[in-house]
């Protein structure tokens, strides 16, 4: 993206956005570094009736702006016009194919809501299935490696910390998973299944907190746990955060096997 601020030619796009049974269509000229979300925001503020969409952080942190963009789940805030004009896969892990263009040469871009979720309006969904299977109280902090750095000064708030809350010692960071549900939408499993995002969280909890191991293993062993996963790996391919949920599912299988 560092090259994008240079003056590159605008890219003509035809955005087709799912709206109920049909599509709302907009023709835009996009600077290569503008994101799909930027373009929707610009259209909306310009008075166009853009179908509803979710967004919050605009930098790939909140996980709200997922959509199926030309057949592949992606975050709208991290997908740039330049990406849309370049060859891309049309299904998770598929071969890159050149963009489809209309008769005037504009790149045709189709935005669909994430699947498996209830549509509120337009491409805005309720992400219930992403969150429903994540264990209540699964910790979102993880220890960060000091990498040879000195330990941090004592925390002046130690005295007020909630004694019930689990917090790793030392440096902390948030878990990589932003709960965007791209993996859940892309997963082809069609039987009851708590899904890749939940299982990734289950495995992280198992790895971080010894006292949670048996509870987490029980979730993985349940009929809707790791069993239904068919190792399609669509989850790992679409994940914007390199969580690789498929890897976590495998680690849970290994843990189950070692306990059997």
């Amino acid at each position, binding site marked *: 993206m*560092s090259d994008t601020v240079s003056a590159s030619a605008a890219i003509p796009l035809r955005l087709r956005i799912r709206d109920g049974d049909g599509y709302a269509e907009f023709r835009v000229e996009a600077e290569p570094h503008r994101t799909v979300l930027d373009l929707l925001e610009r259209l909306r503020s310009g008075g166009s009736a853009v179908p509803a969409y979710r967004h919050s952080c605009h930098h790939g942190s909140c996980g709200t702006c997922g959509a199926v963009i030309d057949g592949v789940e992606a975050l709208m805030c991290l997908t740039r016009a330049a990406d849309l004009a370049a060859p891309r896969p049309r299904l998770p892990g598929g071969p890159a194919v050149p963009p489809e263009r209309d008769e005037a040469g504009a790149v045709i871009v189709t935005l669909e809501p994430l699947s498996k979720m209830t549509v509120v309006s337009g491409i805005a969904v*309720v992400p219930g299935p992403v969150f429903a299977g994540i264990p209540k109280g699964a910790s979102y902090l993880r220890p960060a490696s000091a990498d040879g750095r000195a330990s941090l000064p004592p925390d002046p708030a130690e005295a007020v910390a909630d004694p019930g809350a689990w917090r790793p010692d030392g440096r902390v960071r948030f878990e990589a998973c932003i709960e965007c549900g791209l993996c859940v939408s892309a997963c082809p499993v069609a039987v009851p299944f708590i899904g890749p995002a939940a299982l990734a969280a289950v495995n992280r909890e198992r790895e971080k907190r010894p006292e949670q191991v048996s509870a987490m293993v029980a979730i993985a062993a349940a009929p809707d746990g790791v069993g239904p996963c068919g190792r399609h790996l669509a989850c790992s391919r679409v994940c914007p955060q390199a969580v690789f949920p498929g890897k976590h599912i495998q680690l849970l299988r290994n843990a189950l096997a070692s306990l059997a």
Partner: protein
Amino acid sequence: MFDPPLAPANGVRVCVIGGGGTGAALAYDLCLRGFSVTLLEKGELTSGTTGRHHGQLHSGARYAVGDRAIARECMEETLILRRIAPDAVEYNGGVFVALSDDEADYAPVFTAACVESGIPAREVTLAEARAWEPAINPAARRAVWVPDGAFDAFRVPLAFFAAARRLGAVIRPFVEAVGFDLTGGRVRAVFARPCGSTRDERIECDYVVSATGAWAGAVGRLAGLDVPITPAPGTMVAVRGRVSDMVVSRLAPPGDGDIIVPQRGLSIIGTTQRVVDDPDGILPNDDDVAFLLGRADELCPGFSKRPIHAVWAAARPLAGRAAGVGRSISRDFMVLDHAAPGSPPGSSGMATLIGGKATVLRAMAEKAADHVCMALGVDEVCRTRDYVLPPWREYYSEGNYAEGATLGGRR
């Protein structure tokens, strides 16, 4: 376990307009005090300024020289938020670094102001600071440790929304307030339009609080009010990887491009400031990117060599009307009561809550809820400090949301 004792329901209906952090905390506070709350947000929750902020949980150090009261409040609120939303805060502390002679001279002034504001800042040697975070510029002159942190701009408010909904608030994203019934010079109802619908609903209420941030001017106009708000967008640039775990700031009076907030797998430099008329659809200024990366390199050399992850902008809701650049307008917040001149406060049935920082969302809500109580003669105190909030995931995972029932949309 989130199970706070509830004040008896008082039957008083309050409509909160705006689903940012301020509206979230206000809905929760009002529910705890026994009100019947409906919150309207025209987009997804936190899709205004809140979700896009820089992510700094301000200890108040940045504001201490300018305003001890604001700084003290930030310090108190960081401790409260860390207690009630522990999983949505990356607390690793922060360092202010002086790069020039002037900045080096500022260190004792800065540290003294922090200590006077109740912020346990202390000067450390550069060697110590660089032992914590080797990314800090080795040419820095002085360093001061402060209890800053990073927080998740989306997940902290969502935890408040989860709490509010658990206590009975009706939270309605994708529903826009489009007008008011002002019969008899007092707000009687809000007209609300669900996204994708052409039919307005009438939401009867006894009081309205507009917590619409940079949009407060526009929402005020719907009620025929003049709300002095200036939308002032700033740009942020996120690069991949963490330059540090601590927040790294410039030891100088607040300016542009002077804070690096690390968060999850990113390092974010911000911000800039300009003034606009319309807070909708603001995009980052391309010129800001090179400027911000240059400033980041001064704090942590090599910052700009990292791949850029995202560039975005968010609009500050600055109180007052600015000519030129807006940074001198106070960052403090205010509750504007819209009573006609000569009429008692509360008589218009509406107030606007503006300004502030995401760090002080709970305190802003407390002041606004106190005002609602005063206006409506309800005698209940604030208790939002007292309970650990439910996990934010509950907002989407509970009840009919998980099964995918409507959020007030047309289905």
